[in-house]
């Protein structure tokens, strides 16, 4: 029972941080209607920004994320405006051209980082890295707990931003019906750019929170791309709360899989759930709530 509780708690904490990355993806997917396969690479770039802040200037990763977020916001805006947005007018045989472009961007970001930082594994070790808190007999890692709490705070802030502010409402309007939003005076192309930026910034935030827990290397981005699209589909696309929920589900499923099946199959569990949800519950878990 302790093992089970420990596993579930660990899953929830990890899942909360995955969710933050996935919310970034779901925002982009909602407004642009494309799967952003460069999302993991953006997470990775964000992690490297935080890492450099830590190793060069000694800035704590939880503070470094506030540097990584604006940097990634800026990079995201540029990518959207000058690369992906150009393809809207281009005539091509395959409709998935924008998705393929994000693959190209993923390649450029990953390899760009590799050229500069090499493929070495890096890690951030802080004074509190090994600390744990105890809840009965179950131990909870402090970096995980802190990361989870910050991720939840960000999720709540984002929810507030999307529902209460004008900019947030414009983003939601654009993702619901682009044409109608334009008729209501929303500058849809600007909103799209900002959304991509916010999505990238959230990716950077999630990455920075996970930095004390993971080894950092250029290819780690693929892992986060996979996790965030799994979560996005689990939660039902375009839904912030759905993505938060999906993150928790994936975190728990993975950590149960790691404990009770085997560590090696941990990632298969998520992928299998993903395919099952795609097949039998195409609206994600959100459609269960609605019914």
């Amino acid at each position, binding site marked *: 029972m302790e093992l089970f509780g420990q596993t579930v708690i660990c899953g929830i904490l990890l899942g909360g941080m995955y969710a933050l990355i996935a919310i970034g993806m779901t925002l982009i997917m909602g407004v642009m209607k*494309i*799967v952003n396969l460069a999302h993991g690479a953006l997470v990775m770039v964000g992690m490297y920004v935080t890492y450099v802040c830590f190793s060069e200037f000694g800035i704590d990763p939880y503070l470094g994320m506030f540097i990584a977020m604006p940097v990634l916001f800026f990079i995201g805006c540029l990518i959207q405006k000058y*690369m992906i947005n*150009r*393809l809207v007018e*281009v*005539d*091509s*045989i*395959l*409709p*998935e*051209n924008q*998705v*393929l*472009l994000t*693959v*190209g*961007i993923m*390649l*450029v970001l*990953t*390899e*760009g980082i*590799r*050229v500069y930082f*090499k493929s070495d594994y890096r890690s951030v070790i802080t004074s509190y890295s090994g600390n744990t808190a105890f809840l009965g007999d179950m131990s909870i890692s402090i970096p995980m707990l802190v990361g989870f709490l910050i991720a939840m705070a960000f999720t709540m802030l984002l929810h507030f931003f999307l529902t209460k502010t004008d900019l947030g409402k414009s983003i939601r309007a654009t993702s619901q019906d682009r044409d109608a939003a334009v008729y209501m005076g929303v500058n849809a192309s600007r909103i799209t750019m900002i959304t991509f930026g916010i999505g990238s910034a959230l990716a950077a935030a999630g990455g920075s929170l996970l930095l004390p827990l993971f080894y950092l290397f250029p*290819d780690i981005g*693929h892992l986060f791309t*996979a996790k965030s*699209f*799994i979560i996005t*589909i689990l939660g039902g696309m375009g839904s912030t709360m759905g993505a938060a929920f999906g993150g928790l589900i994936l975190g728990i499923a993975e950590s149960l899989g790691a404990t009770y099946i*085997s560590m*090696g*199959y941990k*990632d*298969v569990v998520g*992928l*299998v759930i*993903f*395919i099952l949800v*795609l*097949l039998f519950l*195409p609206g994600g878990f959100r459609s269960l709530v609605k019914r």
Partner: protein
Amino acid sequence: MKHKNILLTVAFFLVAFLLPLFVKAPYQLHILILIFIWAIIGTSWNLLGGYAGQVSFGHAAFFGLGAYSAGLLTLHYGISPWWGMALGPVVAALASLPIGVICFRLRGPYFALAMLALGEIFRIVFLNIASFTNGAKGILIMPAITSKELYYYIGLLALAVTLLTTYAIVHSKIGYYLVSIREDQDAATSLGIPTTLYKNLALLPSAFFTGLAGALYMNYVAFIDPNIVFNLTNISVMAILVVMLGGVATTWGPTVGAALYIVLGELFRTTLGSANVLVFGVLVCLIIMFLPNGIVGELDLIKRMVTRKKTSLSGGV
């Protein structure tokens, strides 16, 4: 026009057939063999992705199955991996049946993502059933033949068969059905085309020939492990990029793309060192942005650009 195309095709194969008489250096032959392997992968992907419009991010699954069929025969039974050239494609094609049943329930980006997930599942499973597949240690075989010429001709033959089969499929009734599915699936359904059946008919040969490429790779390179042959970026995504580079839904596009990918890759590797993939990525972005249908697909546009430049130059003088 039609005659010209046939002549060009014959000329290409004639040149390719006679090339080893002049090119003797193992390195150059190695490059050409790699081009053949990638051209086969690209051509097979193009059948499903280019003509039928079902963008698959999981072709590494078929490539890896083909390679592992050949490798496991040797590992467990000591049978020559050449038999894998026969078994590999069949295994890949058989695996494509359930995969098709599962994934063709989905459309567009969801199909792409489901294939991506399946490809990754294969990689992780092959990595973990180490008692059967040797896991991350991979399979190393001792190739009985080391002459590059032989591999060259086998690669050329395999590419010729792939190209001819794809060409025949595309220019038959099935081909037109596939294009109609790509252009508008609902319209195709309403005209009475059983779309799922025809998508499966496109996936089957696509998986078959990708498996063939995998088996050839095992025989030629003589070492595989799950992270090489089931790799998402280096196989699945590269298969797409090779086609994007050369030309989507064209007969020769994937071959041109494969040649570009390998030759540029080698050039960048020798001149730029570790930055080679970076430059390739930049190139891919530029191609998708400015030549969205690839080099062969935008041949008219390129011709027009070149001639316009010429006329404007002569006009200036």
